[in-house]
């Protein structure tokens, strides 16, 4: 561990705000890069499933 204490770690020698805002933004965008396509994939599967079920019902 490079830092002596937790407050040292958060403060980052006065650069805390720069460091933590950079990391927060990056993590948020990374999470979005996974979550959005994941939800979209689930939604696509659900829609197609419903569509196929409807078509099968109509065909009968």
């Amino acid at each position, binding site marked *: 561990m490079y830092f002596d204490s937790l407050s040292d770690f958060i403060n980052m020698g006065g*650069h805390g705000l*720069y460091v933590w*805002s950079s990391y927060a933004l990056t993590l948020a965008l990374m999470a979005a890069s*996974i979550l959005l396509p994941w939800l979209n994939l689930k939604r696509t*599967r659900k829609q*197609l499933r419903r569509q*196929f*079920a409807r078509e099968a019902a109509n065909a009968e």
Partner: protein
Amino acid sequence: MWNWLKTLYHRLGSPKWFYQITGKWLPWFVAASLVLLTTGLVMGLAYAPMDYQQGNSFRIMYIHVPAAFLAQSVYMMMAAAGVVMLVWKIKMADVVAQALAPVGAAMTFISLVTGAIWGMPTWGTWWMWDARLTSMLILFFLYLGVIALREALSPQEVAAKACALLAIVGVINIPIIKYSVDWWYTLHQPASIKLTEKPAMPASMYLPLLFMVLGFYALLGWSVLLRARAEVLRREAKSGWVRELLKDK
């Protein structure tokens, strides 16, 4: 050899094969992303020693450098996929190109914003219209252009060709980004790490960077596969295998 190439061509062009194989790859990308990024983050934020000139703000490097690196690398992949799509008419290449664009844009955005934040304590300014920063901004607009073009054009084949062409033409910007720090006067420092040379920093400083770069690549794979899989299902909604796959049980 010829037969092997023929099989490869058919497989690469087959949406069904693509969907199945990416389903097998996906968990590996998920695991690699989580392990590499967690390791890199902990090492970079808590264990790497402070830079004696820049203080702790240098820790922004561990996200700024991988993001900027991927921003360019994803763009080249997108252009390469465009070439494959145009020359060999492999449909899946366009699906991959389409899936690459949003992640590439996100990476470019991360590198621009973290660079601006890093610039404040280091240069005393968050932005400067110099060659490196401007060419990265152009890269961001190229990504937005490709995404907008995809939305604006139809049918799909026309959009695919237009996006591929724009991506290929935009590749000219990549060497400009790379050499901008050597060709013009700039605040931006030259590359801290080269693939061909031993890094000029201790292992405790460059190892986290290595983990982060690999972790960013794994996350890229994860995101692209998710997007590409959804797109394959949408494009192939009329084919038998999708129907079979999404049958109500």
